[in-house]
């Protein structure tokens, strides 16, 4: 029988087959072959693409290289969003592999944050975890951890070490015995059709009468267009980690099992494909 813990592994080891191609206007000394890579859904672009960078820099002159950035069909890819989120939101309806274009010039200042070092990724990641725990536990669990525990979370993600990561992360998934869940659920809802970057609000996992709130309850409250129309063919898909969880799924369960390593549920609302 499948254990809930198996879900944690499936989420962690999710991969997206990706083909990286150098932008045609980049100046090269030789032909640049595309580079193929399986990207971890739960990680960040600039954390896992050192090999991609090296591959293309081999055919370029030093003076033509500045900060690397990635783009999909004209949309610059935010490195500080998890890879799986970017794919679900922008490319899940297209055929695999995911075709990403690599740039070394004309960094789009208006669309992307700079990523000066791995330390910047670590700082961003840890800050997201702290924000998630602020919502779940008023920061009490993450603040009680030692610095080495924080480091272990980061190293676990960086080195793709599931056990190392979850040895510490499991503490962030606990809640007081007298409660039925976290204080608030860390979630962000993304749509390409709106100007807003994402929706994030306070939402409790348990109702006043003790009933567990579901994914459907959340969407009805903070993003009703995602599940419209209620009586008829839905216009959108609600996607997390490439799957569409049933709307009846308890939000507390989703938070414990389908969160990204930063402890947030990153939810994509994408238009349904009409065949």
């Amino acid at each position, binding site marked *: 029988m499948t254990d809930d813990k198996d879900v944690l592994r499936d989420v962690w080891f999710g991969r997206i087959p990706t083909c990286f191609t150098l932008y045609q206007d980049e100046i090269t000394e030789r032909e640049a072959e595309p580079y193929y890579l399986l990207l971890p859904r739960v990680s960040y672009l600039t954390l896992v693409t050192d090999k991609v960078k090296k591959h293309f820099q081999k055919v370029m002159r030093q003076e033509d290289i500045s900060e690397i950035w990635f783009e999909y069909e004209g949309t610059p890819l935010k490195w*500080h969003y998890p890879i799986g989120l970017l794919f679900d939101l922008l490319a899940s309806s297209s055929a695999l592999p995911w075709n990403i274009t690599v740039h070394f010039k004309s960094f789009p*200042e*208006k669309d992307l*944050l700079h990523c000066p070092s791995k330390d910047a990724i670590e*700082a*961003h990641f*840890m*800050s*997201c975890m*702290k*924000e998630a725990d*602020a*919502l779940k536990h*008023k*920061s*009490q669990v993450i*603040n009680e951890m030692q*610095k080495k525990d*924080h480091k272990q979370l980061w190293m676990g993600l960086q080195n793709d070490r599931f056990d190392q990561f979850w040895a510490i992360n499991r503490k962030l998934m606990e809640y007081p015995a007298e409660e039925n869940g976290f204080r*608030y659920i860390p979630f962000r809802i993304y749509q390409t059709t709106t100007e*807003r*970057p*994402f929706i*994030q*609000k*306070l939402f409790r996992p348990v109702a006043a009468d003790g009933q567990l709130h579901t994914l459907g309850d959340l969407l009805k409250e903070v993003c009703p267009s995602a599940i419209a129309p209620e009586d008829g063919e839905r216009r959108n898909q609600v996607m997390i980690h490439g799957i569409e969880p049933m709307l009846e799924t308890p939000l507390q369960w989703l938070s414990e099992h389908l969160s990204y390593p930063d402890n947030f549920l990153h939810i994509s609302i994408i238009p349904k494909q009409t065949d």
Partner: protein
Amino acid sequence: MAEEPETMLQLPSTPAAGGEGLTDVSPETATPEPPSSAAVSPGTEEPSGDTKKKIDILLKAVGDTPIMKTKKWAVERTRTIQGLIDFIKKFLKLVASEQLCCFCPILLEFIYVNQSFAPSPDQEVGTLYECFGSDGKLVLHYCKSQAWG
């Protein structure tokens, strides 16, 4: 980050100006700060009523960072953390190369705990206010050095 030519921060309003926004309630501030070059105009309005409303932000300096004479501001919800940081830097007359970090403290019982998180530069203050505001305002700490991990 994006260069935003006009800030949406509203200066403390004098009685003559009236209207929305805050006057600084602390007695030490006798007169409002003179408008910097980056000041204010109501700016372009968002179409939706929700995003039009401004939220109150209370800015607190930590570490060896200069303190702003005016601490309380009315800010458009869609203003990003980067936009806020740029404004504080201009207000404090810091040079562009000086780093300024913004942290969101967490209210635990009746006090704010020091350890907190640094919101991403592209995060909107409106979202932070919804999730971490209390008593009708969002408290944000700012500092020149990386005071906390």
